[in-house]
């Protein structure tokens, strides 16, 4: 199972989410689909039209910057981290 670590600001926004969770997926896109199945609405918070990962959301697979089609494995760790932006 792939381990996913979500930001605190997203967990507090969507009831039912957890900071660290595990999913069965083969790409980042599938990871987000699995999470959205558990807590509907999460996909819209991470993805923009396109679909594409929102401009100020960074996703890493095993510490490397990732895209929606980046492969993930059962031993992968996914970090979802808000960018250093805002004001």
């Amino acid at each position, binding site marked *: 199972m792939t381990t996913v670590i979500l930001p605190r*600001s997203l967990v*507090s*926004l969507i*009831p039912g989410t957890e900071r660290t969770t595990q999913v069965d997926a083969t790409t980042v896109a599938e990871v987000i689909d699995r999470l959205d199945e558990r807590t509907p609405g999460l996909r*819209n918070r991470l993805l923009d*039209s396109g679909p594409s990962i929102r401009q100020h*959301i960074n996703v890493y697979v095993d510490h490397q910057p990732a895209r929606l089609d980046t492969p993930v494995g059962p031993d992968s760790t996914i970090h979802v981290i808000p960018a250093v*932006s*805002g004001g």
Partner: protein
Amino acid sequence: MTQTMLLVGTSKGAFILDGGTDRTSWSVRGPLCNGWPIHDLQWDPANRSIYAGGGSVWYGPAVFRSDDLGETWNHSSEGLTYGDDGPKIPTVWNVTPANGSIYAGVEPAGLFRSDDGGATWGHVAGLREHPSRPDWQPGAGGLICHTIVPHPTDAEKMWVAISAVGTFATEDGGTTWEARNRGVVNCNAPDPYPETGQCVHKLVMAAGRPDRFYQQNHCGVYRSTDGTQHWEDVSKGLSSEFGFVFGSHPRDPDTGWVIPLSHPEEGRTAPGGALAVWRTRNGADSWERHGDGLPQENAYVGVYREAFAVDRLDPVGVFFGTSTGQLYGSIDEGETWSRIADNLPPIWGVEAVALD
């Protein structure tokens, strides 16, 4: 006894001020909506819900809803999109309950409707199909649909205001739209009276008079007495033609309020540092200045387009928030004022609620 609330949208979340029954002492709750930038909050008396529209730089646009006076919230943006090939929507600028639906105005300018209380949204595509759309240009706040005015009895009729494009009206439930800017000057263009391109800042309908409208525009204050078919400048007597807000009385179509600000290229703040609300009692034929209780020196504050509200009590309570986080109120229809909150984030939206 009637309980009162102020719903306040800021750059750092929503806040609710509870004003009890006498509107003289206010307690602050917040920040709400997870600290998201919130442009607009509205009260839906039909089901006693609060709606809040905004957008997060990280997580995109959403409309929040609370059914327990702001204690708990949920949110959705399902369907709030122009499609995978369309422009991205960063934020919601207006939420307006009407005729059992909820409408949302967004950036870039467009209109969405929810028929299930904000859970899912559908694009009211006719507005962006207007032939002028390729020419739409943003104002300083972006290309934004910031005002939605439903007809009080005819669900087929609605008006919206877009900066810096102008006023549009539909009479067929949103299928087709017509530009309604005749007589409104565009003071930033070589052609002063184009079909569109006028920077309307706030559009309101007069109480009980769906044929009469007022607007605060970038280039003046205007009145229409024929349902927005034609407009006339009614800025004479004001300290400035520029401002963002227009508040209309809940029962008297001749009474309204504006807050003139300094020239748009000279700060857009209270003229001379003296903050004042100007009121008309005769349908904008003339204006009277009211600064009693407001700072009259060194108050270089702005007041944004949605940050002005009136309640429905008698006498009417009038409230506004500033770009620097002060909230002012009057419980004598704008004669005298007091500061009811300070040190809030920059205030973008104010809505006044009187609970039965």
